[in-house]
């Protein structure tokens, strides 16, 4: 629902990079390039950012 704080496999803290990553993707940058430049090297960490689906805004509607 919200980006996990750490990578499930190696434990690197990634959530702090997520907003930067998202902005770059929205600008049309390639995820590959954005991840490289953010210093996310291992593929365990790359999939964390790459496959994130933000659902919190939708789920928030069900709580008054």
């Amino acid at each position, binding site marked *: *629902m*919200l*980006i*996990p*704080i*750490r990578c499930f496999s*190696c*434990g*690197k*803290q990634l*959530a*702090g990079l*997520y*907003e930067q990553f998202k902005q770059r993707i929205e600008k049309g940058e390639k995820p590959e390039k954005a991840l490289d430049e953010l*210093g996310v*090297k291992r593929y365990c960490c790359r999939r964390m950012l790459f496959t994130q689906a933000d659902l*919190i*805004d939708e*789920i*928030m509607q*069900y*709580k008054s």
Partner: protein
Amino acid sequence: MALRIKKIDEKGNVSRYLIKGITTPLLNAIRRSVIQHVPCLAIDKITIYENDSVMFDEFLGHRLAMLPVKTDAKSYKKGDRVKMVLQKEGPGMVYSKDIKCTDPKIEIVDKKIPIVKLKKDQKLKIEMQAIMQSGKEHSKWQPAIISYQELPNVYSEKNCNQCRECIDACPKSVLEIKAKKVVLKEPFECILCGACRDACERDALAIDVEKGSFLLYIEPVAGMPVNEVINMAIAELQDKNKQFAKLLQKVKGG
């Protein structure tokens, strides 16, 4: 062979070292000591006074526990605690920068970690305790991500005809031809994927490792410098060895 250590580079907070003249058991003992025995701070006990967000208390507690806390290993010893408070009212995202600690030296390593999102009038009031503990208890207390690999060595056999198939196949472009032989130009960048060997039609390429040479990667998580983490790991290891020797003496004597 004498032990030699050289720093290769430091990118962001990832440091790489080349170590020569060491064995896998010794290097792995150091690695495991870093992972298991070097203590750092992590949020452990939390009291939730108010949580109006969509996230369940347990979910929120887990997220808080995962936060990397900047650890001052000089003034905090194993078992020490420090209090933190998180108080925020919506609307908007709650970030790690909103967490206030009673000790100004202690803070969350990254200020931009999203913790939870709040709607208008939703409130969050949490009191937390960060505890100094070692990774043996839980991986949140692991002070650094540390790994090693043997130093790769790629070379061509006699039947190589310098067709360059392997050089084009390498995803990291680390091979080159020197004096009619394929050699590894940048051994620190080779990922040992084997694409070069698969591309060779004559079976002329060999992938090997240099015995006793290792690449060590260290990425501190809890804001402690690399040498501090390693020194503490080695001190813990020495301590364990001494205890073991003492116990062994007792067995002999009895």
